[in-house]
């Protein structure tokens, strides 16, 4: 067992180790694809960018998608960590409180009713999905305010499950109205896709993501304490209600932005936090950065597999996350409890 004396060392190691992983993955992933390109040519400053096809493929065609994967993976993973700590439930995930189901409803409505007009240069689907998650977030917020009157985290969890089921049912109802192409498009969207067109698509969700991550960065010790229960945390000086509101709103904001960028990609938000805890321990001062960096790297690798391993058509990244992540997580669990 690690002695907490070397917490500083653990934090440095976490940033160094998982940071290197993320950097390497981001650098190598854009090299792979249907058009082979070479790293030395990509970074060859002697060739002007306009003539350097390899650099264009790297920076224009592939890097935006890789960065989108990093952001989406990191957001889901961090949101998962926060939900699991505050709800004191290892099965909690970014979807637990209905936020990504709300986002899905928004997207399905836009796809089915062909409201495809771009708003301020951003296509309507991400905007609608973000609006949907904001609606669910509103409900979550009201629930967390109601907690002041003594609602337990179990009630919050149950309410989230109910809200999620309800919004999911409305999505399916809307799908029934649509024709086959609409249904195919919306199902494809629900499986997740990181096929972003340009850097602009990334910059828009990056704003709420940055705000939410900055807010969560103030909370790691609070997450440790609330995982022992609200009374224990309060007795040690945590303003639990205030922290909870910041945490739930930030985590929902992360989820909403991530879904609007990449669709409701499953698995990352529930499993990455557990994988990370098995590697670095329970202290959220190492768990949070590790989850962000590992979640980002993990989704880049999954997306790489999704867009290359099954021919030019590719497969939905949402299927790959579970196909790769499931066995990996089970292996970690067995190795630990053997």
């Amino acid at each position, binding site marked *: 067992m690690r002695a907490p004396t070397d917490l500083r060392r653990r934090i440095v190691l976490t940033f160094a180790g998982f940071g290197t992983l993320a950097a390497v993955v981001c650098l190598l992933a854009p090299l792979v694809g249907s058009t082979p390109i070479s790293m030395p040519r990509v970074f060859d400053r002697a060739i002007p960018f306009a003539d350097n096809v390899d650099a264009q493929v790297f920076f224009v065609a592939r890097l935006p998608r890789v960065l989108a994967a990093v952001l989406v993976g990191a957001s889901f993973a961090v949101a998962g960590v926060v939900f699991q700590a505050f709800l004191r*439930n290892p099965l909690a995930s970014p979807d637990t409180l209905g936020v990504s189901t709300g986002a899905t409803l928004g997207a399905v409505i836009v796809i089915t009713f062909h409201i495809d007009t771009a708003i301020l240069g951003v296509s309507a689907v991400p905007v609608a999905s973000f609006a949907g998650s904001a609606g669910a977030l509103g409900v979550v917020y009201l629930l967390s305010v109601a907690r002041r009157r003594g609602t337990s985290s179990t009630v919050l969890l149950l309410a989230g499950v109910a809200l999620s089921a309800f919004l999911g049912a409305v999505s399916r109802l809307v799908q029934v109205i649509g024709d086959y192409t609409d249904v195919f498009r919306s199902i494809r969207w629900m499986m997740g896709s990181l096929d972003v067109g340009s850097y602009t698509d990334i910059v828009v969700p990056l704003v709420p993501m940055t705000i939410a991550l900055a807010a969560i960065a103030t909370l790691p*010790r609070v997450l*440790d304490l609330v*995982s022992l229960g609200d*009374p224990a945390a*309060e007795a*040690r*000086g*945590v303003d639990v209600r205030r922290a909870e509101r910041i945490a739930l709103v930030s985590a929902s904001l992360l989820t909403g932005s991530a879904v609007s960028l990449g669709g409701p990609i499953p698995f990352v938000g529930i499993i990455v936090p557990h994988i990370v805890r098995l590697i670095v321990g329970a202290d959220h001062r190492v768990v949070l950065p590790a989850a962000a960096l590992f979640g980002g790297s993990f989704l880049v690798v999954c997306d790489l597999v999704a867009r290359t391993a099954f021919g030019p058509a590719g497969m939905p990244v949402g299927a790959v996350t579970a196909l790769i992540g499931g066995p990996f997580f089970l292996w970690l669990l067995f190795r630990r409890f053997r």
Partner: protein
Amino acid sequence: MADCGLMLTAENVSFAYDRRARLVLDDVSLSVPRGAIVGLLGPNGSGKTTMLRLLSGTLTPTAGRVTLDDVAIAALSRRELARRIAVVPQDTHSAFDFSALEIVLMGRYPHLAAFELEGARDLSIARDALAATGTSALEARLFATLSGGEKQRVVIAGALAQASDVLLLDEPTASLDLGFQLDIAALLSRLNRDRAVTMVVSTHDLNFAAALCTEMVLLKAGRVIGVGPTREVLTRERVRALYGVDADVVDHPRAGHLTVVPLARAD
């Protein structure tokens, strides 16, 4: 320690969880002298846990006020309060794999600035608290794998690491076997004697309370029905009034304190 200045007081405190709900506590006044161990006794639902939460400032009274050294605790921030008052909840579960030492180090939270990591001093305070509760050997063990008695002692160590001068304990022996109950009673007496920790202990165990507490507050249906030194408050009549139980209250020569032997339901 012998200084008898009033420390923690509740003045005409009433509390209801909901505006329309009945009062859980109704006009309760009590005072906890410096260096005392005050027992909070009463049947289930009499308001003991609520009273402790009001004393720790995690709940705010509907009427009346709680003061700490003549300062209303409502005026103190949660962190300031946590540096003065530590709480041991009835039972503590850890959702994640924290070691016993990590749990104890969390007691240092109110003393650290935002983003400040625990330093060598915090670590030595935590180790000292583990030693004081006889749990040094458990330092590296995962909290979740400890027995009930070990967990309770580690949580008490965490409260000690908080370095407060008041300790509130909610039924600290509720889920413990006889041996551990004696261990906890001995531990609390020792902490009171050696470290001058003032304590308020809620419990259902009259003999545990009689052995440990210098004073008692008897709560029934949210009202105080007896308050004072243990030897004056703990009587046959009071036990009957409190629990509806006929009992013998006798001075046990070998134990050196009052003992309560329940005989039958009184009604």
